């Protein structure tokens, strides 16, 4: 097996691709166990963590991350290359891949150096997972109206309030939390971001079953939870910049991962002899997935070159939900009996149901359209 000591940061994208493909081929036998995707949640989680550790030890998923975060350096685009090649080779993404791309860059950018130096390497290694404490019962699309309060106390901040729709909080070691630190009417100017430990006393996690039957969501209750000094990300009342960074990551590299997975589902649907799906529907799905791929490629390239992406990521997000819902609408029509009456392979039913959330999470489609109209077309608010 290639070790960290021998993995040089590839000069080019093509070199990274070839190198990783070769490594995957050489390590086919020990990687075989990771092709399995089923099982209990804790089993899946454990398996994916071991996959992540193996990729970390070989150095591949350290590419494109700065050394201060436990990485090996190199351009950020290398991260997208590795996740793409992993998917093409037929392996599932390690559990915290999405978290790394969504929350990792914001923590690297805004966390105090000492905190980033501890937390990021552990995230990359798969030693810990993080969750995202943004939405509240009263603050969904209107995120800037959030009310969970953080007040200054000796030695840190004291937090009380509630978060909801937090994915996989029951497994998370840390939470990127948005809290109100300004007056109640301060909107997006009075929000601060923290990275706190989930084992801090006073946090209650309760499961919130989603409509597809998953145990992904949680409600989080904070009862006078004390966040110690050194956990603030960015400035006091500067949390909106952190949130914007997180959303850019979600619509950037995470969207690139998503379209790779969607393409693999399209390929499966197209090849399924039991699915009643015409060439026209397959072709239109391909067209829409290509739209997402083109937009996402542009964003990944800009992020990798440290260029601003601004409001254009709203186009990516809108394309993503449009493509995802179209694909699973096609699958629903072509496999309606399996979806309605059940089938040993429940994935199509589950993917259809989950796809309905794609135009809701991370900023609803209506919000994306408002942003596109106001910021990209200049229409009046």
């Amino acid at each position: 097996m290639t070790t960290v000591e021998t993995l040089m940061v590839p000069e080019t994208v093509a070199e990274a691709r070839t190198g990783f493909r070769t490594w995957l081929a050489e390590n086919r036998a020990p990687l075989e166990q990771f092709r399995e995707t089923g099982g209990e949640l804790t089993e899946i989680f454990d398996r994916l963590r071991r996959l992540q550790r193996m990729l970390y030890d070989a150095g591949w998923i350290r590419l494109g991350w700065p050394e201060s975060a436990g990485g090996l350096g190199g351009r950020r685009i290398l991260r997208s290359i590795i996740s793409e090649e992993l998917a093409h080779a037929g392996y599932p993404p390690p559990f915290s891949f999405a978290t790394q791309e969504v929350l990792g860059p914001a923590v690297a950018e805004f966390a105090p150096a000492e905190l980033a130096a501890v937390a990021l390497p552990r995230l990359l290694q798969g030693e810990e997972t993080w969750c995202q404490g943004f939405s509240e019962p009263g603050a969904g699309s209107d995120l800037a109206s959030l009310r969970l309060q953080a007040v200054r106390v000796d030695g840190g901040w004291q937090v009380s309030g509630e978060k909801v729709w937090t994915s996989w909080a029951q497994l998370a070691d840390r939470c990127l939390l948005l809290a109100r630190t300004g007056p109640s009417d301060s909107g997006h100017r009075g929000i601060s971001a923290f990275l706190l430990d989930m084992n801090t006393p006073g946090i209650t996690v309760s499961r919130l079953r989603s409509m597809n039957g998953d145990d992904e969501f949680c409600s989080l209750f904070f009862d006078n939870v004390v966040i110690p000094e050194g956990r603030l990300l960015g400035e006091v009342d500067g949390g909106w910049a952190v949130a914007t960074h997180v959303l850019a990551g979600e619509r950037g590299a995470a969207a690139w991962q998503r379209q790779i997975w969607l393409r693999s589902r399209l390929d499966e649907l197209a090849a399924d002899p039991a699915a009643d799906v015409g060439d026209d529907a397959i072709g239109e799905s391909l067209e829409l997935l290509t739209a997402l791929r083109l937009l996402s490629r542009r964003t990944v390239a800009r992020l990798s070159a440290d260029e601003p992406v601004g409001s254009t990521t709203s186009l990516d997000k809108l394309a993503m939900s449009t493509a995802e819902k179209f694909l699973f609408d096609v699958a629903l029509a072509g496999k309606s009996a399996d979806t309605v009456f059940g089938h040993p392979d429940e994935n199509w039913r589950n993917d259809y149901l989950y796809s309905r959330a794609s135009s809701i999470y991370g900023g609803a489609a209506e919000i994306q359209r408002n942003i596109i109209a106001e910021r990209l077309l200049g229409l009046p608010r």
Partner: protein
Amino acid sequence: MDDDDITQITEALRQTVEADPAAARKAITEFGWLELLDDQEQIAVSTLLPIWGRSLAQGSLLDPILVRAGGVADPTGLRVVLPALGSTRAPGRLVGDRVEIDGVLATGYGPILVLMATDGGLTLALCDDPGVVAGDPLDPSAGWARLTGSPAVLEKRTPTGIDPDVAWSAMLAAGRRALAYELIGVSEKMLEMTVEHVASRHQFGRALGSFQAVKHQLADVKLWTTVARLAADAAWEDGGEVSAALAKAAAVRASAAARRSCQQLLGGMGFTWEHDFHRYLRRALTLEPMLGGGPGLHRELGAALRSGAVSHDLIAL
């Protein structure tokens, strides 16, 4: 050529075309655009065709693009018979020694190139001028007419050294890329004129563009025109059939979204002869089905994916 050169060429072409859109073909020939097309197809097409679309310049540029892509020697003035609107099947059928044609042809004079289906496969034939092509086109300035019938007067002269399958597939890809850019120009112009309209027109004491129902329609048009640009630019990366079909499909989606939403939002004003909108609508409706419209392209793309012809490396990082 670097980006600055391309910006300069684009600006010069824009001025050339906008000076007199009705005489733009002559002007760009004098400009040397055909030589640019010989040397740098991507730059020639990606700079001029969007301008052509947004200016509604008279006539089409497809013929010089197609004959070059097909590798036809001495292409000057040659016109290519395109498949019937919405179709990508060969427009000609050899019946005995006659050619039955159902296709689309640029108005003008001179010999024509016809793709024919024969018992032995595809054949390209050089034929004499079929004469006046009658019709009542929706957009007379686009310079396209329907060509039907079986004119026995056509003389078949097969160009030498050309494999018809290879030539036709290259022509189809080149034509679709060109049409994509032209449709992008038409769509972007429709979007601009509508954004201007809804930002300046007030009803109920507010700008129309401040209503969410209006914003959301235009946001979708912005999405699809952006995607269409990216798809057209990406189609040069491998120069292949699939990426050209994807580019054309994206442009058709952008154009259809633009004409539907913009017409609705321009309201009664946009429904007058006096308003320019109908001229863009006519051009869009003419170009969308050429060399395959939305449904045909989707069928083709689906079949390509099922046959394994759509690589995962297409549009790579």
